[in-house]
């Protein structure tokens, strides 16, 4: 069928605009480059095994406290979040160290406090067949103590294309205890 020249002109413009709009729409919904680098998230639950690429973590307990102590006489006041977990390497110890252990609250990222001392600080190599129980103690801004937090664990500081074990914590649902203990790292029973 043939349109009059003016109609054809208008139709061409309309078609062009529709295509540009469609192109914009396609670009808007296309994920960015970093989408291809996303980590493989493993959702952890308290009391259950969470399996990452070469490690197995079992979350044991999450506590909020206003006063913490370690086993060697150190203590501190403040807003603290303690996460006790058991960690074991699976398959091989090569590539099974826990270098990424952080608590994310909103835009902020907290790292386990070094104040608890080197024997209580969760760190380093996980062992095959020999699970260890350790506690990560995070000292947080009291303003963040009633928000939602995510605990993120993994092998490397860079979590692209690797497993990431994540635990959702609703800090508002936890009651702060007056005193909590940060035990030394020890082999699990």
């Amino acid at each position: 069928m043939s349109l009059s020249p003016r109609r054809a002109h208008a139709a061409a413009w309309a078609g062009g605009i529709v295509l540009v709009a469609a192109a914009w729409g396609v670009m808007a919904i296309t994920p960015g480059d970093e989408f291809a680098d996303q980590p493989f998230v493993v959702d952890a639950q308290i009391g259950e095994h969470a399996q990452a690429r070469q490690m197995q973590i079992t979350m044991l307990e999450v506590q909020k406290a206003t006063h913490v102590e370690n086993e060697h006489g150190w203590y501190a006041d403040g807003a603290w979040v303690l996460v006790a977990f058991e960690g074991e390497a699976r398959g091989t110890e090569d590539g099974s160290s826990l270098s990424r252990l952080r608590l994310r609250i909103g835009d902020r990222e907290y790292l386990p406090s070094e104040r608890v001392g080197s024997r209580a600080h969760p760190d380093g190599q996980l062992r095959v067949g020999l699970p260890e129980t350790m506690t990560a103690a995070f000292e947080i801004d009291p303003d963040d103590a009633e928000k939602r937090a995510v605990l993120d664990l993994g092998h490397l500081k860079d979590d692209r294309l690797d497993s990431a074990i994540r635990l959702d914590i609703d800090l508002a649902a936890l009651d702060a205890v007056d005193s909590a203990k940060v035990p030394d790292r020890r082999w699990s029973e």
Partner: protein
Amino acid sequence: MNDAKPAAAETDAATRRTPASWMRVAAKAVPAKWVTVAGLTLFLGATAAFGGLADAPAAAEKPLARLEPGDVHGTGQLEVSFTRAVLIDELPGSGTTPLFEGGERVLVVTGTLHNATDAPLPSLSFARGQLVVDGLPEKRPDGGAVEASTARLDDATLHPVIQPGLSVEVAFTWPVPADLLHADDELHVTIADLTWFDPSWLSDQPGYWTTPAVPAAELDLVIEDVGAGVEEEQAG
């Protein structure tokens, strides 16, 4: 012939009628060279108008902000304030061990660091990269470098990491020759800032803190000499 005239008349009418067609004729008549020269002149004129042709300014020395003890200065990452400067024979747990045979003592500057960013910051990076104390020697008697060390005042944790949103009272310490500084001397301290550079609207690269740090503030602290030491300094 009959055909030519209406055509000519038509052309005249057409050229007189629209500016567009006049432009077309004019454009054909103007030499190309004139157009390029005119365009270049316009472009340069516009550039000069907003200062693009002026000399690049030499890195201007920004005057340093003068602080008093207790004043808070924001470095972009940390908010810092300093309170005291103290000379002491030794301060165990501070990270600085003076060489007695070399005639060293410990210079302590106390202050508060508040982390204004969203990620933990090591106090040692600030102490060694952004804090300069005038008059300190380069090397110690045994050849080691004279470097700052940090420790928390409350529990003596060495090289503390300041978590986001938190404030920590810190003791900054340096090993100094015993005869270098005396009570009532003025200790000149310079604080340098880091700038956050964010190219995100140009590229996918994440932002980062630029180095080297730029000196931004200074203060003078009057040195106290506490001799062999005050008991409550040795915390934890």
